[in-house]
Structures are given as structure tokens and as C-alpha cells.
């Protein structure tokens, strides 16, 4: 299950999607934005994506993870639109015969998603400020690129 959705994420559905009689381990990651950052309050968040590329990038991540680890199930769901702090904006679930693969793949998926999938977050601060979040970038292109940036 790969999904970009405006609806709240249901962890039970994400877990159900990776359920398998061959799995001995399931790892679920939920990412949320905290309401408070250095004493400043976020009232809401808005997520947008480049839909055609984000869907493709998530499918690529899925394929790469399945090449690297022997996974049974793999599911990635990301919210779009308005999200409240404390609500999950992303859920990643993987299942595998053994737990090392499940933990490693789950960690790699969220790390790589955060670096490379074209999704952006806007912070709507309680003080009225509005701010797109564009983190400092690494020097090289994200993993799915054809090579290092010139």
C-alpha cells in the first residue's frame, strides 16, 4: 500500500496491509509534528506534494527496500493538506520473517523519504507567521537521482 491521502492515517489499516503468515516481525513508524518547537507553537500544518513524482518516488523506495531486505509487506502512507500537530503525517510499516530486516528497512525508508520524496510542509505558527519548511540540503542529489549534482 502506497498512499498520499487527505484523510487521517489509521495505523490499524497500515498494519493490516503488511500482515502476512510468513512475517515474524512488524515494525511501524509514525511521524508527527510537535506542537511546540523551541517555545513557539504550531497551530496547524499544510502538506503539499508534486503528485506524479511523489507517487513514483514512493514506489521507487518500495522497490529499493524490497531489493535490500527480504520483506513480506511494505506500506507507506503520507498525509496531504491540513494536519494538526500530534496527528501522524506519515506512517511506514514493514513486515519480515526476522526483526533485524524490519527495523533496518523501516529506518531506511523514513530516512530516505525525508531526503528525497517531493513533499513539503508549511508551518502555520500561533503567532501568525506562515513558513514553508525547506531544510538545509545535502551537497549531493537525493538517492533516486542519476548522479551527483554538478
Amino acid at each position, binding site marked *: 500500500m502506497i498512499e498520499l491521502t487527505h484523510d487521517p492515517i489509521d495505523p490499524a489499516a497500515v498494519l493490516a496491509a503488511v500482515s502476512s503468515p510468513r512475517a515474524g516481525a512488524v515494525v511501524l513508524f509514525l511521524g508527527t509534528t510537535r506542537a511546540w518547537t523551541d517555545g513557539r507553537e504550531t497551530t496547524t500544518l499544510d502538506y503539499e506534494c508534486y503528485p506524479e513524482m511523489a507517487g513514483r518516488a514512493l514506489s521507487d523506495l518500495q522497490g529499493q527496500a524490497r531489493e535490500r531486505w527480504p520483506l513480506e509487506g511494505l506500506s507507506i502512507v503520507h498525509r496531504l493538506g491540513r494536519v494538526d500537530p500530534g496527528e501522524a503525517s506519515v506512517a511506514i510499516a514493514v513486515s519480515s520473517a526476522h526483526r533485524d530486516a524490519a527495523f533496518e528497512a523501516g529506518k531506511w525508508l523514513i530516512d530516505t523519504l525525508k531526503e528525497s520524496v*517531493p513533499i513539503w510542509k508549511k508551518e502555520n505558527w500561533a503567532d501568525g507567521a506562515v513558513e514553508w519548511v525547506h531544510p538545509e540540503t545535502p551537497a549531493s*542529489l537525493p538517492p533516486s537521482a542519476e548522479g551527483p549534482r554538478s
Partner: protein
Amino acid sequence: MPVHRVKLFAGLREAAGTDLFEWEAPAGATVADLRAELTRRFPQTAALAARSFAAVDREYAVDTRVLSEGAEIAFIPPVSGGA
């Protein structure tokens, strides 16, 4: 000369004031040339454009990549999904 239609997102879109800009590029123009044109046209995008990657046909592309007619082109400012 080919006309490229370039998608802009998030802070880059807001800095430019548009989600699409068009450029009638000389033949052989590269991603780097496109970034320079974006910055010339919308100077307020300069800082963020310098930190943005181009995507051609939905894949990240290096700065030396030559733009081909009809390709889907976008600038991807640093991403912030996943939390």
C-alpha cells in the same frame, strides 16, 4: 526554440508568485541555464533556487542535463515530508 513549462512548488512557488513559468530556451540549454533564468526572472527566488534540485520527467536531474522538448520539468526545493 523549444518552450519549456516548469513547475514550481512550496516556498519556490510562493517566492515566484506562480506555480508555472515558461521559458523559450535556446537549443542545448541545461538545468543550470534554467535555474539561472528562473533567478533572473524572479530574483526573490535566488536563495531557494540555488538550493533546489531539478526534476526531469519525474526524476532528479543533474545540472548538466540538457533540456529536451516536451520533457516534464520541475524545480524541487528542499523537501520536508516525513514528520
